């Protein structure tokens, strides 16, 4: 019989994923990833990688009667998720740490270990997304059945190699109430827990973390209009995000947004909504679920932020780079993922490159 490992965070979703597989009679093994050193300085009650979450995961596995292991991924998480997060903000980008965690920790380091070290056949997680096999035998990645919980945006980087080994049992559930009902049926204590929305390793205000780790990004600089007129000062690039509304301009009654962060001059360029004229963005690190793009230029609906609305546009692919042409102008922060959809199916995606405004 094949053996499936379940990445258990201690939360209800991954516990239920394990319960569904165990209920099917599969040979299930629970694993929990330590993501921060024990007793470390990241004191986040909601973080899935802390001791407390590990205890919850262990109890859930025990309730299901499956083997359980706590595995240490603190090094890779610190380097590929937390450090990159800080570096990105300090460099005027808006990172997506969930994407980095999925890409480097869960579906690279952990999947590798499950298959190569522990002899597992498959890895399951508690993500709200569906993986199916199409008529051509290729694996497909689809939005969760419960669209309101869909997490496919943060999983666009999965390819055939990974999807051949992956399962997402709760992506098939109709809604969260069904998840909670299953949790209750299996006596999982996680059934009544609240959902987390914060950045897991930086609860509250993430700027504190960035300020702590990259103080050089908190040197004040000028706030300028696109014509170079200085209209104020800001506290530091690290505290700003492209697209965010600024306090500047209140006196004149204008609503001004950060259009661009110039790290070399420490300048924040701001403008009105009317000045957001960009329809074209360069993308890097572009990947496709099928392995190849549908064609070198294809029409798609692109999502530019977590739970964002799909926007119509075209993608021109050049190996791992692409140009995104939106039908209507939109303001997107560099560092965010641009994910291509065809209906509910994820085609692929890439990272929005720093603007060359």
């Amino acid at each position, binding site marked *: 019989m094949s053996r499936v490992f379940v990445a258990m965070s201690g939360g209800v979703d991954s516990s239920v994923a394990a319960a569904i597989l165990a209920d099917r009679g599969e040979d299930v093994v629970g694993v*929990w990833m330590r993501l921060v050193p*024990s007793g470390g300085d990241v004191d986040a009650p909601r973080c899935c990688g802390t001791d407390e979450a590990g205890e919850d995961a262990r109890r859930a596995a025990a309730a299901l009667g499956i083997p359980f292991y706590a*595995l*240490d991924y*603190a090094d890779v998480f610190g380097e590929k998720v937390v450090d990159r997060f800080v570096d990105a903000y300090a460099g005027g980008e808006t990172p997506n740490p969930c994407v980095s965690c999925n890409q480097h920790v869960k579906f*690279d380091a952990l999947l590798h270990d499950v298959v*190569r*070290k*522990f*002899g597992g056949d498959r890895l399951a997680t508690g993500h709200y997304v569906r993986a199916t096999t199409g008529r051509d035998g290729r694996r497909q990645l689809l939005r969760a059945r419960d669209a309101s919980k869909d997490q496919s945006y943060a999983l666009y980087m999965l390819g055939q190699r990974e999807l051949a080994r992956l399962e997402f049992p709760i992506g098939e559930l109709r809604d969260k109430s069904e998840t909670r009902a299953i949790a209750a049926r299996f006596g999982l204590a996680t059934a009544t827990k609240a959902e987390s929305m914060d950045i897991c390793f930086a609860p509250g205000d993430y700027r504190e973390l960035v300020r702590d780790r990259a103080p050089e990004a908190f040197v004040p600089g000028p706030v300028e209009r696109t014509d170079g007129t200085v209209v104020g000062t800001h506290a530091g690039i690290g505290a700003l995000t492209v697209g965010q509304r600024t306090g500047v301009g209140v006196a004149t009654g204008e609503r001004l947004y950060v259009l661009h962060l110039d790290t070399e001059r420490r300048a924040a360029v701001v403008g009105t909504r009317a000045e957001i004229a960009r329809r074209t963005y360069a993308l890097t690190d572009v990947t496709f679920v099928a392995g190849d793009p549908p064609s070198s230029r294809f029409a798609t609906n692109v999502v530019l932020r977590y739970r964002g609305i799909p926007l119509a546009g075209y993608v021109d692919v050049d190996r791992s780079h692409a140009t995104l042409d939106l039908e209507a102008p939109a303001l997107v922060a560099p560092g965010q993922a641009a994910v291509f959809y065809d209906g509910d199916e994820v085609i692929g995606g890439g990272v929005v490159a720093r603007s060359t405004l």
Partner: protein
Amino acid sequence: MERVYLDHAATTPVDSEVAEAMARILSETHGNPSSIYAEGRAARSAVDRARDEVAAAINADPSEIVFTSGGTEADNLALRGTLRARRDERDGLVTTAIEHHAVIDTARDLERHDGARLGVVGVDRYGVVDPEAIRDAIDERTSLVSVMHANNEIGTIEPIAKIGAICRHEGVTFHSDAVQTVGALEIDVREIPVDLLSINAHKFYGPKGVGALYVRRGTRVATMQTGGGQEKGRRTGTENVAGVVGLGVAMRIARERRATESPRQSELRDRVIAGVRARVPGAVLNGHPTQRLPNNASFCIPGTDGESLIVALDLEGFAVSSGSACTSGETEPSQVLLALGMDRELAKGSLRVTVGRSTTASQVDRFVDALSRVVARLRESAAVAV
């Protein structure tokens, strides 16, 4: 799947005779050993019999046995109790770099919070403590020397008779954590000049949560807790009667079987070592080649990490350990292995195999088979993406 348990240094299964004796005392004797009426006398007498068994096993006097909640408490009582009792005259504590956490962390705590002067003596590449290094570390203010009888991770047996003689000559109290050796090796406290000796029942087929500290008559040990004055005030609190009874029975059985069981286990241990050497290329034996516990085979396996070895072997049906592994889910190399001068990367691939009474040659052979497969897979994995 039949499970094969090869982690007897972590804990041992409770002997059925021990379990029966404990069940009997729990159901038949409910008295408090301090009570003067019949029920109390019955409980007291059960505790006394256990004390006699423990004393007999190490050739001590029953009055020299203090029951504790286990090895950790015995170590804490030995270190803290001695330093406190003698603190007006002496404040020095000497121990080694390969002690169990119960000793080394207690020593560091005494240094940090009680002003103890701590000396930590290193070991050679086999983990052997040089008695002369202990002599050099002792000065006129040294209160206590603590050196384990055998190391829990690598199995090396320490020259405690020589170290004890030095301590006695210098007028220093000598403690030895013998948690790994009581029951496995012959210990005669009339032969070995040891003043304090830690004992833990669950390492020799007794229950968890009970142990003892041997305190040589005349040795000053201050109590760590106050209360009703049990154990002559050295470890106050109503006795864990069933646990103590279990300890006593386990001790007697261990003594009876030692002469046949220790050589039998040594053979199995050597079978593990030979098998691993033959089937796992590059495996390094940790600890002393001959001066080691009869049941301990400890290795470092290059190109692997302890955590992966344990998980993969568990899924194949084998229970083994990586070093002491009191901290799960964290992959820091063992302090003991680093103290031997081992490279950090190599130390991460540590594996401890400890045989026991139920271990058979066929189990050992199956284990070696599984290990060679797992190691090959782990080494391959380093070179392959998903």
